[in-house]
């Protein structure tokens, strides 16, 4: 067994392991990177902040909404289906019924 090579390599590995052991934060980071290998390089940067600034975004057709309002003027508005993710058939969506478009960081991370 040669003296320099394997010893130097194992010293480096040992330091890395020590880092993970002494720093729970770094261990958690390793866990996260293992689950999402394509995680962006700038975690606290633009993506995260822009998600924060865009809170409340809902895609909504005002034409449909106003037509439904006109039609329903004399009748009671149909209540939204309990399954809020499915808006089908005769039910015209109102802003309240639309599912909140929550731009999940997890999916956007996977999308890279």
């Amino acid at each position: 067994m040669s003296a320099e090579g394997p010893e130097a390599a194992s010293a480096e590995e040992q330091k890395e392991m020590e880092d993970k052991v002494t720093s729970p934060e770094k261990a958690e980071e390793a866990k996260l990177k293992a689950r999402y290998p394509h995680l962006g390089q700038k975690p606290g940067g633009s993506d995260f902040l822009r998600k924060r600034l865009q809170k409340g975004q809902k895609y909504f057709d005002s034409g449909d909404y106003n037509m439904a309002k006109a039609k329903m003027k004399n009748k009671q508005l149909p209540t939204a289906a309990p399954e809020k993710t499915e808006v089908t058939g005769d039910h015209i969506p109102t802003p309240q019924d639309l599912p909140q478009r929550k731009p999940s960081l997890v999916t956007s991370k996977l999308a890279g």
Partner: protein
Amino acid sequence: MFSGPRQRGLRLLTHAEWCGVPSEADIISTVEFNYSGDLLATGDKGGRVVIFQREQESKSRPHSRGEYNVYSTFQSHEPEFDYLKSLEIEEKINKIRWLPQQNAAHFLLSTNDKTIKLWKISERDKRAEGYNLKDEDGRLRDPFRITALRVPILKPMDLMVEASPRRIFANAHTYHINSISVNSDHETYLSADDLRINLWHLEITDRSFNIVDIKPANMEELTEVITAAEFHPHQCNVFVYSSSKGTIRLCDMRSSALCDRHSKFFEEPEDPSSRSFFSEIISSISDVKFSHSGRYMMTRDYLSVKVWDLNMESRPVETHQVHEYLRSKLCSLYENDCIFDKFECCWNGSDSAIMTGSYNNFFRMFDRNTRRDVTLEASRENSKPRASLKPRKVCTGGKRKKDEISVDSLDFNKKILHTAWHPMENIIAVAATNNLYIFQDKIN
């Protein structure tokens, strides 16, 4: 509350539960005592404001323990939809701030993401009777039939508390308002959103001055946002704002009209070797509060509370760990978004103690003089009227002792984000999702 458990303890004074059809609207989103502590205002996700008033302890009601009862309830904000931007504007009340009392009525500012409103809360306990031109039921009398004049008399009536919106301060914020703060001059206040801070005059609703603007010319270059802002309690020209990068800037409005350049910059140096993916996120400051003395300020980041001396920008003078055991759970806290939870913090009246919330309905109190701290739980099961709250302990590893809770059993859906401390007495208000608890420190 920090000395011997047998002598003193926090006892439940009042418990109120927001309930109806279980809905998100019942989640309490802000809690604030007024200047005397006799009134406690709460705001919720449904846009409602509920004000509690302290019962006057008097000889006629010797059993009264000074409990807080509902005084007034009103709908402050309604949900709105901005069609142009396809943006839903939540009715959730982000902050309530009281104005100092100047006459019999009470005034408060309440804000959602976009609009700030000044509300007047007044009492009516007298009614005029004996009008000349109308009957008691309000019908107009025929003027030609009136043969004699009488002076209307004021008669007592059941107390009625009315809330009316006196000013609406709208259309000044492109981004979401996170803070409002009344100035010590009692004439102006500031409102802060993610990128800008505006200065208002309480009487003027169609104009506000922009005093801080950190929006970059190119949004791709955005690196930090404003997370909280507050006016100095005594110096009407000074305010601070905190950022998502864990820094605080103190600005002096005398130096320039636009306070983009700070007068003081507070940042704790970081050890670069300990930097991780989570470092910036957990350093984001969720709340900043001046001490009553005006000499210190306190900041809350994800894992700790720090006290800063305004005369020293290089580092805080005190750091208190709130729930350090969560550092080894950051991966899952990031995945379930809990790492972005915004906890508030508060001082007691004498600035000798500070309080902040945690998970599992726990809240933490730190005595700055004795350096002791305690973890308490705000929950129905633990709040029998006469018993004092028992300190709780989280077990971080190894053998769990009886009465301890292991980190993995903590309920991260039960978060205490909002707490308030009475300005003079040892009475605290703790909001746990849709429950409000008011505790008082009483000697046995």
